[in-house]
Structure formats: structure tokens, C-alpha cells
């Protein structure tokens, strides 16, 4: 399959004077339509890498290409930030309509409401984010991203603020949705089990300055049960790779 996103020799350092190298000559190729999970030690540069991929942070050297063109941040790839970026001053419906500037008036409302019910938020269209639970807020985030029909989703630890149960539920819902609308997904996470549950491949990053240490293929049938021996065996292998236990 042809690559959707390619990173070539991407490096990035922060700070003036005493520079802090964060990403170090990193090469990576992401296939069209795959879910690639990225795991690595805390603070190794996962968020930085994702921001570079999505075009929000320019690398010091190297290059990111999407569909063989230099990346620019636009609706083709939606970034879901680690802290979430649902606008707290807009209602759920207004948030979902935010990116729909092509459609006019009634169409946009209908589309927004359709995506609200897709993620199970029917009846909350006029609620403000502060009136929602953490899980519901995540659903708004997903719905807003999906509503603009992006080809790529860049997700930065989207489930980490949720409890284990809610995380699993939303992951399953998202996997269901992704079965019908195929997208290329880059999923940054610190949870190896989540990575194995969701991904087609898992890229393991080294400590800072980060580069790709190993890439695991996840050859497990879907839907996957997190407790299955296949998932657990691969999880153990990746944890060993990370140097944990």
C-alpha cells in the first residue's frame, strides 16, 4: 500500500542557548488507512512528533509529506490535542458545526446533529462542554473531527483522561466507526494495551531525543478482546522492548 504520511530525517530541538534535542533524525512511513499507535517513555517527544506530523510545528531539519506533498495543517488531517480542544464557549452543536463552513445554515445543523447522535450525544446538542462528563467531552472531540470528513486523525492520548471502563467503551465505539469510514489514524498513547487493542502497527519510540526503536505488526483478528492471550502476549513483548519489567 502506498504511504499516506512519510517522515524523513525529522529532527527538532527546543530552547535557546542550551538546546534540548527532542526528535532525532526520525524516519517513519504511515500507510493509507492504517491505525498506527505510537508509544514511548513519558516526555520522550510524542506530542512534539505528532504536532510535527500534523504540520503545526516545523522540524529543524527533515521533512513531512502527506500524499507526497509537504504537510500543511488543514482539514485533511485533524489533530486532537492531549488536553482536548473542544471550545468551552460554544455549545455541542456549535462545536460540531465549527468546521462545516462549506455547508450553509440548515445543512450544517443537520450534519452536526447527525454526528452528535453518531457518538451517542443526541439530546445534548445545546449543552455547553462544562455541562458534560469527561467521556462525553471526548465524544464531542471525535464527532467534531469526524464531521469534516478528514482523511487523517492525529490523536494525542485521547483516552488517558478516562477511567478504564469508559476508555474501553469509547475505543470500541471509535473502532466501529472507523470500520465504516476508513481513515488513517496516528494514535499517540502511553498505554501499551490500548495500542495493541486499537492498532495495525505499534511504533515504539526511544527516550529523548527520540527515534523509532521498533515497529510491531499487530496481526490479530478484529474485534480484539483486551484480555485475549494474543493481545496480552504482544503487550508483554512491547513492554519488554520499552524496558519495563
Amino acid at each position: 500500500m502506498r504511504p499516506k504520511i512519510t517522515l524523513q530525517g525529522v529532527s527538532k530541538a527546543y530552547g535557546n542557548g542550551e538546546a534540548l534535542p527532542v526528535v532525532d533524525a526520525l524516519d517513519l512511513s504511515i500507510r493509507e488507512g492504517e491505525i498506527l499507535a505510537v508509544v514511548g517513555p513519558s516526555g520522550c517527544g510524542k506530542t512534539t512528533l505528532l504536532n510535527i506530523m500534523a504540520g503545526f510545528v516545523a522540524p529543524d531539519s527533515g521533512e513531512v509529506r502527506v500524499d507526497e506533498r509537504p504537510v500543511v495543517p488543514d482539514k485533511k488531517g485533524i489533530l486532537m490535542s492531549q488536553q482536548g480542544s473542544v471550545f468551552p464557549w460554544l455549545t455541542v452543536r456549535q462545536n460540531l458545526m465549527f468546521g462545516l463552513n462549506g455547508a450553509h445554515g440548515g445543512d450544517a445543523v443537520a450534519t452536526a446533529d447527525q454526528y452528535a447522535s453518531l457518538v451517542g450525544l443526541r439530546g445534548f446538542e445545546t449543552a455547553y462542554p462544562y455541562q458534560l462528563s469527561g467521556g462525553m467531552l471526548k465524544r464531542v472531540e471525535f464527532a467534531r473531527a469526524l464531521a469534516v470528513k478528514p482523511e487523517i486523525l492525529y490523536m494525542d492520548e485521547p483516552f488517558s483522561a478516562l477511567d478504564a471502563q469508559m476508555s474501553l467503551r469509547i475505543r470500541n465505539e471509535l473502532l466501529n466507526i472507523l470500520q465504516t469510514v476508513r481513515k488513517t489514524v496516528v494514535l499517540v498513547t502511553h498505554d501499551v494495551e490500548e495500542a495493541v487493542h486499537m492498532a495495525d502497527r505499534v511504533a515504539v519510540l526511544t527516550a529523548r531525543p527520540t527515534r523509532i526503536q521498533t515497529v510491531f505488526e499487530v496481526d490479530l483478528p478484529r474485534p480484539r478482546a483486551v484480555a485475549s492471550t494474543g493481545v496480552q502476549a504482544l503487550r508483554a513483548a512491547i513492554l519488554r522492548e520499552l524496558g519495563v519489567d
Partner: protein
Amino acid sequence: MTRAMIARARRTAPSLVVFAVLIGAWWATVTMTGSLIFPTPGEVLTGAWGLMQDGTLFEHIGASLFRVAAGYGLALLVAVPLGLWMGWVHGAFLTLNPLVQILRPISPIAWIPIAILWFGVGNASPIFLIFISSVFPMVLQTANGVHGIEKRYLRAAENFGVSRRKLFSQVVIPAAMPQIVVGMRVGLGVAWLVVVAAEMIALRSGLGYLIIDSRNAGNRYDLVIAGMVVIGLIGLVLDGLMRLLESHPSVRWRYAS
């Protein structure tokens, strides 16, 4: 009595007691010292009642409120766009912030001679003074509000590729709105302080004039104090209105969690 009423009574009782004690002490002191000039609370009430009956009190209130509305309204019209611009365009901030920081600490009283020179002794002077004293807090709060917008929201807006117009109407302005409202509240408080001071100079109407005139025309300290009380009460009402604004959904998101 319902539970809510009892809770309410519990909350308001202490401040009512303080009022009662202060007024009692005031009354007792004036009676005991037999002051000929300083009035008792009763005399203040009688004086205020007289002003209400002949309508002069309402004329003065109307004059003061008109000046505040004009000066504050103008300040708001200037401050919000200017603050948004300074908050959004870094160069504008670098250019204008020093000027604002120098003008801001100048007391409105210090502007009085210049106000009279430029605008004479009509309504324009107090309106100018109110404008000059309430515009800066609102400019700075608005600019602060824009500066404080978190990057993740601006990135999201950029990501969804919206027009500049939508970026401002749905992200920048609403995100800064809680700060803008804080600035508006501060600005209105300052405006109300300044109008009274401005009216003490060379004007023939307004609550400030009422106070200075009552003193000059025969030491009517009952009317002086009545005027002060009215100023305090109207200030309370104005602040209460601004608080109402703070409970609007477009602002409340900032404080709810």
C-alpha cells in the same frame, strides 16, 4: 419558613446587624454631642425625602447616569476593538502598550484642568474624564483576554480552516469575553467614581454637584450624606447589573467546571 429562606436569612443577617449597629452608633453620637452641623440618620432621611418630592434628586441622578452612559459607552466602543487588536497583533501591543501604561496611572483628577481647557464646563468635560479613566482598564483586560487564549484552541481553529471572520466571532472574541466582562465591570466602577468627582467642578447638575452645592449653600450636611448614600446605592446596582452579565452562558463557561 422554608429551608432556603432560613439559609438566606443566615447569610444576610450579619451584614444587616453591622448596618444597624453603625447607624445606631451614628445616631447616638450625634444626639449626645448635640452637633449643630452633623445630621442624624433621621434628618438625612427627611432631607432625602424632600429632594425626592420636589424631583431634584431624580434630575441629579439622571444627569450623572447620562454622563456615565456617554463616557463609558464611548470608552467601551474604543476599548474592545483596540484591546482585541493589541491582543492579536503583537506589533500593535509592542507599539501601544507603553503609551497605555503611562496614561493609565494618571488620576482622572489630574486631567480636570485639561478637560476644562479642551471641552469647557459643559457635559463634554465629565464625559471626557469618564472616558479617559475607564478606557484603559478595558483595553488592557481585553488584550489580556486575547493573550490568554490557549494555543490548543487556536490550533484547532487553524486546523478546521475557518475564515478570519469566523475565527474572530467564534474563537477569539468568545474566548476573551470573560476578561472583557471583567474589564467592563472595573471600567464601570471607575466611571461611577469619576462622574461624582467631575461634577464637583463647575457643573450645575449631577450627584457630585448636589453634594458640593448642599455644602456651599448653607451647610446642608443632611443632603450631603443623602447624596453619598444615593451614590453608594446606585454603584451597588450598577455592579449588580455587571454581575448579571457574568452569569451569562457566554461568560459562565470560564468559571464553571
